[in-house]
C-alpha cells in the first residue's frame, strides 16, 4: 500500500503546484529523484506522461477561448517536436550519469532566473530609472 500511496501523494502535490503555476514542469521529476530516489530515466518518463493529461485538458480550454497564437505555433511546433524526438531517443542510449551535470547546470540557471524574475516584480525604489 505504501508503495502506491507515496507516489500518489507525490503526484497529488505536484499536480496542485502545477495547477497554481508553480511547478514549471520539473517539480515531479525532482521530487522523484531527490526525495524518493527513483531512477533518473524512469522519473523522466513519468514526468513526461504526467504532463500530458493536465496539459491536454488545459489546451482544450485555451483553444476554446482562442488563446493559442496560430502563427507562433506554426513557426515553432514542428521543429521543436523534431528536436524533442531526437533528444528523447538520444537519452535512451546515453549513460544517464552523463546527463547529471548538464541537468544540474540547467536547474541552477532555471532557479536563478526564477529568483531574478521574482525580485524584478517587486522593485525596491520606484523613482529610479531602470539600469541598463
Amino acid at each position: 500500500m505504501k508503495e502506491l500511496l507515496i507516489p500518489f501523494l507525490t503526484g497529488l502535490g505536484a499536480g496542485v503546484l502545477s495547477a497554481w503555476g508553480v511547478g514549471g514542469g520539473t517539480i515531479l521529476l525532482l521530487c522523484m529523484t531527490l526525495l524518493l530516489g527513483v531512477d533518473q530515466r524512469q522519473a523522466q518518463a513519468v514526468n513526461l506522461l504526467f504532463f500530458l493529461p493536465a496539459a491536454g485538458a488545459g489546451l482544450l480550454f485555451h483553444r476554446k477561448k482562442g488563446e493559442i497564437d496560430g502563427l507562433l505555433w506554426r513557426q515553432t511546433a514542428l521543429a521543436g517536436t523534431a528536436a524533442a524526438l531526437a533528444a528523447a531517443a538520444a537519452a535512451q542510449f546515453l549513460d544517464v550519469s552523463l546527463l547529471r551535470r548538464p541537468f544540474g547546470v540547467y536547474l541552477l540557471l532555471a532557479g536563478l532566473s526564477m529568483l531574478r524574475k521574482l525580485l524584478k516584480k517587486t522593485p525596491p525604489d520606484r523613482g529610479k530609472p531602470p539600469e541598463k
Partner: protein
Amino acid sequence: MKTRWGVTAAAVLAGAVNGLFGGGGGMVLLPLLQRGGGLGDRRLFATSLAIIFPMCLVSGAVYLLQGGVSLRDAMPYLLGGLAGGAIGGLTFSRVPVTWLKAVFALFLLYGGVRYLL
C-alpha cells in the same frame, strides 16, 4: 526572439531540453518567447503549452516504447496528478503563489547543487 528564426531556435532548444531531461521545456521556452514581446502573458502561456504538448507526447512515447517505465509504475503518480490538478484548479485564485515560487526556485537551486555534486 522576435524573428522567425529566433522563435524556431527557441523551440528547438526547448525540445532538446525536454526530450533529454524529460521535462522543463516550458521553463526554457516561455522566457525566451517573452523576450520578443508582442503577445500578452495569457496568450503566450497558452501558446507555449500548445508547443510543449507535442514535444512531451513524442518524448513520452519514446520513453514508454524503450521500456524504461511501465504504465503500471506511472499510474499512481498520474492519478495523484489528476486529483491534484483538480484541487489546484479549484483553489487557484485564492493562493498567494509568489512565495511558493520563491520556495520552488530555491528547491531548483538545491536540486542543481545535488546533481552537480
